[in-house]
């Protein structure tokens, strides 16, 4: 257990708590940078996949984990980010500009959609966004002239300052590109949480009424949260489409947003680490499953196995570890740090009673 002797108010909101935490994350960064030297291109591709999922997950985490709004429609914003990025690249906009603009476009559209949608609460918001995700699928088909409908689009090679990056020829560069985006997004996210806006997010999540009482403009905060969340998810979607090589309306169907939501819950709602841990689970689960089914001699793929197993995992998490993988790690760490003084009830939640939403 480390104790901090605080001599400065800034210490409370520092990016890194102390030198030790900083060195841990620095070590992690060095490890991530050195990863291509250690593993072969196949696993490097998987690592890239994990990072892309993590970016999309961070977007949803900002909305669900920090601001407390459920969205089942983030696949629509992934699609928007992806299509706008690729369309701009096809119009010979440089990649960096197209990529960032795609994020901005997605964010603005998300914020515009959020204005009416966020009048809705809890369940209604979830259903409205679910409808949005289903609509997006159909709209992509309808906008054939731009999106090529069900035939889908091939993603163009990325031209980064005159240096061409394609997934198959240079996976290492792809990995670094994704890592750079991850770093950018994570730093932005972390800093946002330290800023007044991030505090406002948490206030809205914990209690809208008390947030209002503290002078937070709830509607505005939620709209901004939705916009930023969509922008980040849009970046993730753009990377996912470019990485996949080809994509159509099916790539971004509504099951993707459910997967995204499940991913952040398994990882740990409200923690940046949670998005990454969840991404690891969701990216490697198919591999693990196919290895296990091979082991049991059922060579043919079992349809629906993946989502079935994921469903079971999710239910178990909500029942036994609602704080997710990262929450479990926090508990273990606290236990070790305080040993032998950790008590069982340290993370116990307060009992709460439900009141109807229909009377307010």
């Amino acid at each position, binding site marked *: 257990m480390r104790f901090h002797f605080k001599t400065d108010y800034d210490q409370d909101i520092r990016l890194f708590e102390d030198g030790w935490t900083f060195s841990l994350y620095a070590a992690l960064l060095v490890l991530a940078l050195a990863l291509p030297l250690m593993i072969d291109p196949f696993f490097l591709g998987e690592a890239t996949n994990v990072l892309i999922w993590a970016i999309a997950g961070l977007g949803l985490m900002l909305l669900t984990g920090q601001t407390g709004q459920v969205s089942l429609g983030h696949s629509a914003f992934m699609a928007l980010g992806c299509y706008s990025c690729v369309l701009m690249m096809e119009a010979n906009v440089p990649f960096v500009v197209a990529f960032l603009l795609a994020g901005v476009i997605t964010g603005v559209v998300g914020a515009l959609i959020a204005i*009416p949608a966020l009048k809705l609460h809890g369940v209604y918001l979830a259903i409205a966004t679910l409808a949005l995700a289903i609509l997006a699928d159909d709209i992509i088909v309808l906008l054939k002239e731009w999106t090529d409908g069900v035939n889908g689009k091939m993603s163009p090679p990325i031209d980064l300052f005159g240096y061409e990056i394609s997934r198959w020829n240079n996976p290492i560069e792809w990995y670094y590109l994704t890592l750079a985006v991850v770093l950018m997004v994570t730093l932005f996210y972390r800093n946002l949480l330290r800023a007044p806006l991030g505090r406002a997010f948490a206030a809205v999540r914990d209690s809208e009424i008390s947030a209002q009482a503290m002078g937070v403009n709830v509607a505005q905060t939620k709209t901004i949260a939705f916009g930023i969340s969509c922008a980040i998810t849009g970046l993730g979607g753009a990377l996912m489409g470019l990485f996949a090589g080809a994509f159509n309306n099916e790539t971004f169907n509504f099951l993707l947003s459910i997967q995204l939501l499940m991913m952040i819950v398994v990882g740990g709602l409200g923690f940046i680490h949670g998005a990454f841990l969840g991404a690891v689970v969701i990216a490697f689960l198919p591999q693990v499953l196919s290895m296990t089914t091979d082991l049991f001699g059922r060579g043919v793929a079992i349809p629906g196995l993946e989502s079935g197993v994921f469903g079971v995992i999710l239910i178990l998490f909500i029942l036994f570890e609602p704080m997710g993988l990262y929450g479990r790690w926090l508990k273990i760490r606290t236990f070790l740090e305080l040993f032998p003084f950790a008590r069982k009830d340290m993370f116990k939640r307060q009992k709460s009673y439900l009141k109807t939403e229909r009377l*307010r």
Partner: protein
Amino acid sequence: MEVLQLLISGLANGCVYGLIALGFVLIYKATEAVNFAQGDFMMLGAFVTLGLVNPEYAGIPFWLALPLVFVIMGVLGYLLDIVVLRAVFGQSQVAVIIVTIALGFVIRFAVGEIWGHEPQSLRSPLALGDVRIGELVLGLADIAVIIVTLIMTFLLWQFFQRTKMGLAMQAASQNQMAAYYMGIPVKRIQGMVWALAGIVAAVAGILYASKGALDPTAGFIGIKAFAAAVIGGFGSLPGALLGGLIVGVIEPFASRYLPPGWSQIAPYALLIAVLLFRPHGLFAQVRAKKV
């Protein structure tokens, strides 16, 4: 004539949506949770019936199997509540939404493993074939579906208005703690609601399967039932049925008169329009609290 034809088939579809929506509303009314797996419940109920009735499986006569199906689905609903949902009792709605979505995945997987993924048809006494009245071709199944649904809705409505249990369910929904104080066994009541929702889902499933082929992805029509429930105003039983009928009727007309591609959008577009302009549905249940 064509309009009438479209109307009746739309109404019959709408009844199935309406019944699934009733399931949502039941659970929502009593536990303030939304069961995103209700569509999959419906599919499960249909498959359980199919497994009991069809000659290639158990081959029990339909009317004997029916109570058995209700018991199975009721017990299943009750068990789900005890094992899974009671653990998230009183937690935020996010947890409930996610748990029920996950349940849907699990049910779909289990059904696919047990009964296979091929479309199958139920030997239902409601599947009676067609009758011709002049130019009109009516599926008798469609009419039967409409009648059964009306009866179901009436019974449920009376149940909530008149019986002690129904009132207790409403009380438990409006304020859990106050309901506890009034001596209502809130937990048991919630279990009963889930059981009831399971039975309603079984009815919906049987009606759905009487109208056509059945496969494990049938549960996805639950999403349209969502639209129905929201349009009707979550929390209102007649509203859910009406919403179901609206969605059901819009679909055939949209696919007849709108260019292809636009017709699938119609129910969801309506849903979003309703959410924007009347966020609490046609039969709004939200009232300002009197202080």
